[in-house]
């Protein structure tokens, strides 16, 4: 039973967390909010942007502010799954040799999968179980991951040489995908100022605990959402399917596959988390709108015509949003 006190505490905690991150990360408030939403929703998030935009710094700042165990995995083409999940090694103890599991970097609370698209699909697949089931299986043994657990991955959209696009099964496991855009002039000036003067960037102190995160997750799940809005979310997801009666013409023309049911879950949970972070006690349309693109943009598979004509998923989602009535 969630009390009023719990709700107020959790709200205050995440306000502090956001402020701590914002002190380090110049601009990118939406990106920070998405990271927190993913954290509150027990999800994972994919940041996409050119190098040097502060993606890694964001993840490190979040992990620092949360006071959680942080792991950074730099994905390279020669990275092996065992390098991520760990492996059984022979150890000698009291004159006896035996296999013991050496946990990989995946065993942490906050995982930074940097340039995840540079690893082979085989290695990328090593994250699937951890991202969804929060477990890691090595050999015959399955090891649970500690909560709160979150994978924050980054990828470079322009450097395609030697990269391996994420398989659909894996990309669908990211709750949100956030495009990290180039900072504005003011933000850029502030970035240069913080990195070139004084002691440089100082990661924040831990402002939240794992317990706060878990409480926050409980509260988010309890936030009510109207049945009509739930139906609305369902129609939004269906509208991304070209064969659906709700889909607009552009979706029918350029989309090969629409969003999965995970997208609907992501929308509902993301809307709830967004409402929670906004201090609201119920889901509103603006909450859905805020995470609509982030929850769906990586789940649309364009057809050949869409790819050839350079149609973006965001453009299609704008069309879906505008042409789907809430009531």
């Amino acid at each position: 039973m969630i009390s009023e006190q719990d709700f107020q505490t959790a709200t205050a905690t995440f306000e502090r967390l956001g402020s701590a991150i914002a002190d380090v990360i110049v601009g990118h408030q939406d990106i920070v909010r998405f990271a927190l939403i993913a954290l509150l929703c027990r999800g994972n998030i994919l940041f996409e942007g050119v190098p040097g935009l502060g993606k890694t710094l964001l993840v490190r700042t979040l992990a620092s502010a949360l006071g959680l165990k942080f792991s950074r995995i730099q994905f390279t083409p020669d990275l092996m799954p065992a390098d991520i999940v760990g492996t059984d090694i022979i150890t000698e103890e009291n004159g006896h040799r035996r296999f013991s599991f050496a946990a990989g970097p995946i065993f942490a609370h906050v995982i930074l999968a940097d340039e995840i698209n540079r690893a082979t699909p085989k290695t990328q697949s090593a994250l699937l179980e951890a991202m969804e089931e929060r477990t890691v299986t090595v050999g015959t043994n399955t090891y649970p991951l500690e909560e709160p657990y979150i994978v924050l991955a980054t990828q470079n959209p322009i450097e395609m040489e030697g990269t391996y696009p994420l398989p659909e099964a894996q990309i669908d496991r990211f709750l949100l995908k956030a495009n990290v855009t180039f900072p504005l002039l003011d933000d850029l000036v502030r970035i240069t100022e913080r990195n070139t003067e004084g002691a440089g960037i100082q990661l924040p102190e831990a402002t939240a605990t794992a317990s706060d995160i878990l409480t926050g997750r409980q509260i988010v799940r309890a936030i009510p959402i109207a049945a009509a809005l739930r139906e609305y979310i369902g129609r939004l997801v269906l509208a991304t399917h070209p064969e659906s009666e709700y889909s607009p013409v552009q979706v029918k023309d350029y989309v090969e596959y629409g969003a999965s049911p995970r997208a609907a879950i992501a929308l509902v949970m993301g809307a709830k988390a967004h409402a929670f972070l906004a201090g609201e006690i119920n889901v509103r349309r603006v909450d859905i709108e805020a995470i609509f693109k982030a929850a769906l943009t990586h789940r649309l598979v364009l057809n050949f015509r869409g790819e050839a004509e350079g149609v973006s998923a965001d453009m299609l989602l704008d069309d879906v949003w505008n042409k789907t009535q809430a009531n």
Partner: protein
Amino acid sequence: MRFDFSRFLLKIEQRFRRIHGFSLACRTLFYASIACVAVNLVLGGLAPERTADLGIFVLLLPVMLAAAAFVRGWWKRPDLPHLLLQLDDELDSGARISSLYEVDIRGGGSIFRTQLESRVESMSADWKRGIRLPRRTIGLLSAGIAGILVAGVVLMLPGSLPMAVSQLPTQKSEGWPVQAQVMPEPGQDSVYPASNDVAAPLESFEETAFLQLPSHQSAQPDSDLSLDSILDDLSTLAASQTHVGTGPSAQELKDLAETQGEIGSTPAPARAQQGHMATDSRRLAQQGTQALGDPAAQVGHPEMEQSSGHPESELALDSITDKLQDIIDQLDTSSGESAAVTDSADFGGDSETRPTTAIFADQQAGQQFLEQTARQLADQATAEQESTDQNGDSQQQPSYQRARDPHQPGEGASDNIQLTADLDDQLLAGGEDGIGGTSDDIHQLGEVGFIDEQAPFTVGTQGEFINEFVTQGVPVEIVPSQNQAGTHIIDFERMESILHERGLPDEGVDAIRRYFELITQPEGES
């Protein structure tokens, strides 16, 4: 006091039902009023004489339909989740009401329910603006009421649009005075079955066609014909029973006959003239009916007196013809002997030169009558000739006619018979010698035509119609009289001699004499 969300929901639902019902009613009223106007227009055209009940029903029908629509709209249960979300959007409440409804139906208490209730309660005072009557509904209501008013105006006003539309052809046909009359059924002669006009049954289809023509085509009488003036004179003559005076010239009569012949043979372009003639024929028939009174009285035929004494009765052409035929037959019967009649060819051998004077409203009918009479006379003459040869008894006179007429032939003064002017229709006249032709006329009886001479007399004071009743060869003499026109006298002795010269038996001559006695009037009996 704790916020009662259930009661709040009930208020919302009731308001929605009322507005939904009202919207549906307004929409129904709008369309029904349009249909009402259309129905009234149609009814106005189909049934101009509508009852008040029908009008009230038609006017109330949209209202009743709207009421039914209101009940139906009110009866419909709203989709509360969507209704509440719509209310949230209208109130910009951030989906709190619909979220509270979700919490409410899921049951249990939480901080969210408490907080949501408090926030919904704060805006519950202004919640009604979230469910408002659409402007379109108000517009439909206004239009619907206006439609009913229009329908009412259309329905109630006596000179309403539909009635005006239905009467439009009649009003337009002011130039066609009797277009509204019912056209005759096939085989129906009269188009005025219930008319008070005594001559109405005589109107032919051609007359109806004429009457449908614009008045400007028929309003102007044909000055060349001068038929109106002739008929007026005839009417005056019939009323005054004046004697025959000096008539028109033979040329005028010939022109008149030719013109009438053209009318009879001219199709559509001369419809106006035909109609004019038909109208005049109706008047002639009326006058002829009056004129029949005297001969009938003379003859003492009660049926004829009855028919002629009631000008209101509808005397058809055939009935007049039949009456005349009956009179002739009765005369023949009453005389107790058969009149010897020669073949009609003796009078010229042409049906257009029948020696008779008849009362007809129609030239063709008159010809038919003459042909029939001549044919009967010929038949009788043939039959009686045979019996005369056997019995030698052929000199009987009609005692009935003698008893009535002091101017009977054989009684001296009765040889000269004065023609009455109440005769109705034309008579084909002939003879180049004109009126009062001599015995030379016998050889010219076969020629057809009007008398060329200018007749020095008139009928009565101004009439000139009498010439039309005199056929070629009829010995007519003009004697001065007290009036300026003079008196037109038929020399029956001379006519009798002509007939005898042509081999006509005595019975035939006698029959012809009786005929002229019948249709004429002794001098001084006006």
